[in-house]
Each structure stands twice: as C-alpha cells, then as structure tokens.
C-alpha cells in the first residue's frame, strides 16, 4: 500500500537531518535567551520578548523572504558571505537556519516555563553560599531546566519536520539536496498523477510527528509532576 521512491527516502532522511540540526542549533541560543528573560532584569526586556515571539506570529513565507533578503547573494549579510565563498541560499544549511528560526519561540517558551518553575529558594541558597552567577547557572539552573529543555527541543523538532513556507523560499525544492517531506508532498500534490505517492509520504509524516508529540506530552507531564 505504501509506495516510496528513492527520492522519498531522501526526503525523509533530509527532514530528519534538518530537524536534528535545527534543534541542536537553537538550543544554546534558546537557553541563553530564556535565562536572560527569566532571571536578568534589564531595560527593554519587552522588546526582546516580542522579537523572540515574532517568528511565531509571522507567516513562514515572510520569515523565508526576509531571510532571503538577508542571506541572498545581493543581501546585506549574504554579500559578505559571498566574498568568503560561503553560500547559504539553496543549500541544506538554509533549511536548517529557517527551521531553527521558526522553532525558536517554541523552545524559549518551554524553557521559560521550566525556569520559572524553579524554586527561588534554591537560587537564594546558592547565592548565600557564595556561588557566582555562572556557577549557579551551570550547577542549579541547567540541571533543573532539563525537562523544559527536552520539551522545548521536541517542539522545535516537530516544527522543523513541518516547516514549509520559509524552507521553500530559502532552500528551494531540490530533490536529494533540500527537498524535505513537506516539499516533496507539495510537488506530488501539484501533479494529477501523484496521489498515492503523496498519501504515502503524508502517512510517514504523520507517524513521525505522532512519535515526537507523544514524547513531548510525556515530558510535559513529568515537568508538571515536579512542580
């Protein structure tokens, strides 16, 4: 019943590669931003919060188009990269960047919930015991943020698997190189003769998403039980 061609297997492999890379890429930045928003007082914090949440509300094609303007050959950052012979547009790297950006708000959100649930008494205790802020960060906050980290990571992973609008604009639809599952399904869906193939890939996509979301729910429950 399920027919998958070799380009379909490529699509599945590329989707997983992009999702894993995007999650790993966004983790350090997400953690840093969540820490700043939760524990550090500074002016203009609202601006940072709004900027972080922006990719969540912007249509993904807008995110993609803005990225294209930024990283394209004639773009602001792109022309500099071009001189160093680094090429991002229409490569898998662009797909990873796009997915990381659209998933970023979800990661920060999860991490913030986790960090806000940390008992402030523990932080005060570590401070009275003489720990510097980085010591507290590594030995108290980081271990206690792990459930939030895992929950956030699974959300970024799931979002990356479904990323289409920004990806097709900055990474293009290149079978075997950047054609992830949503792009492959889009190509099949535009063709009258691609029905069964589209459905097969859809099924694979649903199965992967269900598995990831299951994991997320389990982690969220674990976090709630702790608090």
């Amino acid at each position: 019943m399920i027919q998958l061609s070799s380009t379909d297997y490529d699509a599945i492999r590329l989707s997983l590669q992009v999702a894993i890379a995007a999650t790993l890429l966004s983790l350090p930045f997400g953690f840093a931003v969540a820490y700043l928003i939760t524990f550090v007082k500074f002016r203009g914090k609202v601006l940072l919060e709004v900027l972080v949440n922006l990719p969540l509300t912007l249509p993904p094609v807008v995110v993609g188009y803005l990225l294209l303007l930024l990283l394209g050959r004639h773009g602001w950052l792109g022309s500099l990269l071009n001189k160093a012979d680094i090429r991002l547009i229409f490569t898998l790297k662009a797909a990873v960047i796009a997915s990381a950006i659209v998933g970023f708000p979800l990661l920060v959100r999860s991490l913030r919930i986790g960090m806000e649930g940390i008992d402030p008494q523990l932080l005060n205790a570590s401070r009275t015991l003489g720990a510097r802020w980085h010591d507290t960060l590594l030995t108290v906050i980081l271990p206690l943020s792990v459930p939030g980290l895992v929950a956030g990571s699974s959300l970024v992973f799931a979002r990356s698997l479904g990323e289409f609008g920004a990806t097709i604009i900055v990474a293009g639809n290149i079978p075997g190189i950047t054609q992830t599952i949503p792009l492959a399904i889009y190509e099949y869906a535009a063709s009258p003769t691609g029905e069964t193939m589209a459905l097969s890939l859809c099924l694979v996509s649903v199965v992967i998403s269900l598995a990831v979301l299951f994991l997320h729910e389990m982690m969220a429950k674990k976090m709630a039980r702790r608090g």
Partner: protein
Amino acid sequence: MKNVFHMITTTLLCFILLATPVLAGDINLSVAASLKEVINELSDGFARKHPGVKFVKNYGASGALAKQIESGAPSDVFISANLEWLEYLKNRKLVDTASIGTFTYNTLVFAGAPGKASSLHDLVKLERIAIGSPKSVPAGEYAMEAFKKAGFGKQLEKKLVMARDVRECLMYVERGEVDGAFVYKTDALLAKQARILFTVPQELYPRVTYPMALTVAGAKNRDADAFFAYLHGDEAKSVLAKYGFAPR
C-alpha cells in the same frame, strides 16, 4: 439560550447569503503560466468590446491546472503548454472534444547570466539549474526529456531546483540564486537580467505545443464560447507575434 440560538442562525444565514455567487458574465480561464501577458492583453481587449464580461484568470503549471479542473475548480477555457495535460482531461471527459484546437507553439531555451554556458555540455559545470517540476510543469518535462536524450540525465540530477511553474524558474535566475534555468524563449525575452544562453536543440524534445479547449462547463457558457472564438482570430495572432510566440 433561545437568543443565542437565534444569533447563531442569523449569522450563519448571513454567511450563506453573502457567499460569492457565480455570475453569468464570468469567464474562468485556466492558462499555462507562460501565456500570462498574452492572455492578459487579449482578455482586456475582449472585455473592452464586451462590457459586462468579467474574467477570472488562473495562471499556473498546466499539470496543476488540470488537477484543479479535475477536482472541480470552475473553468471555462483551458490552454495547456503540452498535449499531455489536455489529453488527461479529454480522457476524463472534462473538455468539449469538438472545441480542441492549437493556440500557438514555442521553443525551449536555457537562460542565465551571460557567459555561464553555451551548450548542454556546459551544464554539468554549473551548480544549480532551475527547472519546472516535471511532474506538473510541461517546460520541465520538455527540459528533462532533452537532457536525458542528450545523455546528461545522471550528471544533472542533484543540480536541479524544482520550480512550481516556468515563471518561478525565470524568477530564480533573475535573482541570481541559480546559475541558469530552462524556460521558453518567450519567457526569456521578458527577462531583465538573464539572457538566452542557448536554444535547446529541437531534435531532443517534442515541439512545444499549446492545445486549447473549452471545458464541459465552458461549452455551455456563451461568453466563454465567444472569447474562445476570439482566441482563434487575427488580433490574437498579432498579440502572440508581439510576445515572440511562433506563428500557427
């Protein structure tokens, strides 16, 4: 509770009544993307002579259009960029067989920045080549057939950026994100930055033919019928020639 029920019923009724009705003077066109300028000009010309007629234009890849018509999208006139998609609809009895004719012809070229390539051989040196997705874009199907026949199929495999129609190919090459694209000669003539680097040898692919037909719904639409006849006329021929399409 009764008030809420009344409110919901009234709102729903408003939505239903405000739904856009299909007006009698509408002509729904499903046309291959490469004919956009030609059909825009011809429909404007026709609308000036026939006030009250409104065109709903849908430009895109012929395969995607065929699928939309099959799925029930309103359409009166269908102009495809290859015979395959018209045959597809004909086999499903969705077009008026008596109306099938040929609108025009075209040639396939490779467009890009000057100096990138001068023949099919040079393509293997390029990094990224834009092509319409062969699953639904005739230009892509023609291109794929051409370089497969020339023996470059394997070598060009991982270089191909799939576009949803021939105009998107042109857009990629205009932006400089690809080294070149397989487009029609008429599309390349509209390009501002890209140039025609070489014409794909005609022996490698079937002649680019644009068949046209009235759909089953279109055959019953008097205005669509009149427009269809207009497309066969002299004004249509001169507009086609103006944009570089081969004469019938």
